[in-house]
């Protein structure tokens, strides 16, 4: 609001963005107090898709809760299951064989690439360009076919088990993944020419909705949002888990903090994940995919532990408190989109409506992951 207009009595009106709105990717309502097209205050109202996942975690045994974890952030479902399974393994002290760890990393990174591809398409639709969505979905379809051939499901995989994975990957999965890596690498220059260098896209994203590193830290935003603001915080590097230390990959960081930076972080992360996939496929050891004696009814020792995983949208943390029985005493799911959305109120003040939607799109939200 320019200084000149301060004196004029300005009447603000409340605009409801959602809960059914094409740009909210799920059932999220944002109460916008608008002054003309400028946003004075945006208050997200969540809870429309709340299923009390944490109570389900308490009244189901560990193994029976496994399918629920894929229903949290269903676009990158592997990471939720990975976080939950590793938390239980850390508490119960189960050692996972080498090959299973590699398979977990391979399927997780494939899921990250699929999630970022879906995000690029959906982000462009938010900005009004419809065609890139079809191209990214075409590429993502190949990943889903690969994962469907190994796990049996396309979106909510229930593939990991305590102590490994439920069935082994075969040769045409490995060959298919290598073919996919080569295919996507050949498509990336087209995406950069078609989207990144496009002047209209650059005008829509550069210097729009800048989020400072301090705001990200204060609100607990993680993942591509904080890496877009210049902080190289990646759980795979800072708190290495599984076999990630064996691969060399770098964490893309862009200091600007605007929508363009977050877009670039995700595009570079696709390339980094392809590098990880290649190295993982090269170093894939033989051996069993399940730990030998995993008790059918798991009763981990009393106590609590915390395990977090670098999901496609940020750190997905699981705090597990167990009291020795076969059901968790308390299961806390720290969802990345929950904190990423919490900074929307702060950062969208004074933005125009289309820019606020560009900010909302660049946060890459999955609403059931927020509502749990």
């Amino acid at each position, binding site marked *: 609001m320019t200084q000149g207009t301060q004196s004029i009595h300005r009447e603000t009106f409340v605009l409801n963005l959602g809960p059914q709105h094409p740009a909210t990717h799920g059932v999220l309502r944002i109460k916008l107090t608008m002054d003309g097209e400028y946003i004075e205050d945006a208050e997200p109202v969540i809870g429309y898709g709340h299923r009390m996942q944490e109570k389900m975690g308490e009244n189901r045994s560990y193994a029976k809760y496994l399918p629920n974890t894929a229903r949290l952030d269903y676009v990158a479902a592997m990471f939720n299951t990975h976080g939950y399974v590793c938390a239980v393994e850390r508490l119960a002290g189960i050692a996972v064989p080498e090959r299973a760890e590699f398979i977990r990393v391979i399927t997780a990174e494939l899921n990250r690439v699929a999630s970022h591809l879906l995000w690029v398409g959906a982000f462009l639709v938010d900005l009004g360009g419809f065609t890139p969505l079809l191209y990214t979905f075409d590429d993502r379809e190949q990943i889903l076919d690969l994962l469907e051939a190994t796990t049996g499901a396309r979106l909510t995989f229930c593939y990991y088990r305590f102590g490994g994975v439920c069935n082994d990957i075969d040769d045409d999965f490995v060959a298919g993944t290598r073919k996919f890596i080569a295919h996507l690498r050949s498509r990336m220059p087209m995406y950069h020419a078609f989207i990144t260098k496009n002047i209209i896209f650059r005008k829509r994203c550069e210097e729009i909705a800048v989020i400072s590193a301090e705001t990200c830290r204060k*609100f*607990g935003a993680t993942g591509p949002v904080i890496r877009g603001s210049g902080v190289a915080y990646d759980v795979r*590097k800072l*708190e290495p888990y599984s076999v990630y230390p064996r691969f060399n990959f770098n964490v893309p960081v862009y200091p600007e903090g605007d929508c363009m930076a977050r877009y670039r972080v995700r595009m570079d992360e696709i390339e980094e994940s392809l590098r990880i996939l290649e190295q993982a496929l090269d170093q894939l050891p033989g051996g069993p995919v399940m730990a030998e004696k995993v008790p059918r009814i798991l009763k981990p020792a009393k106590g609590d532990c*915390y395990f977090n995983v670098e999901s496609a949208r940020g750190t997905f*943390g699981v*705090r597990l408190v167990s009291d020795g029985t076969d059901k968790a005493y308390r299961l806390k799911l720290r969802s990345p989109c929950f*904190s990423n959305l919490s900074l929307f109120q702060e950062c969208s003040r004074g933005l125009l409506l289309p820019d606020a939607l560009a900010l909302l799109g660049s946060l890459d939200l999955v609403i059931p992951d927020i509502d749990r």
Partner: protein
Amino acid sequence: MSLENLTKKFLEIAVQSAPPAPGPDTPAAEPQPLVVATQHAVKGYDLDVTVPPERVLDAARIMDEAAFMLESITGVDWLAEQQLEVVYDYTCLVSGARVTVRARVPRATPELPSIEALHPGANWHEREAHDFFGLIFTGHPGLIALLLPEDATFHPLLKDFSA
């Protein structure tokens, strides 16, 4: 900000919070800020600090000065000891070190100060803890329902909650 001087800072809180007079009704032993260094690989966090509820704000100030980020606030309902435990998870963005600050509050009067002023991210976490456990964070700007319907009076994650 290495873990050692973090531990020193946390121990200072113990000195300042000398208990006024051990009230007859404090059920558990006077909760000293136990500072236990744990192995990251085993427990998932490096420093486990138990803090009396009123010192939670100071712990948050230490964490804020050390440029830690608040990951999440977890409520745990210990029905046996009639206590509600609030667990704050902080993580350092640079070194990846992780600090867990715990505070125990009697179930009858579940009040503790809100750290929303230092970590605005806690705003939603505290509202969620209020939804699920009935914890009341004094000083919180808008402690209304976040995930549950506005008129919800029940707190589902309490152990004695029956649907």
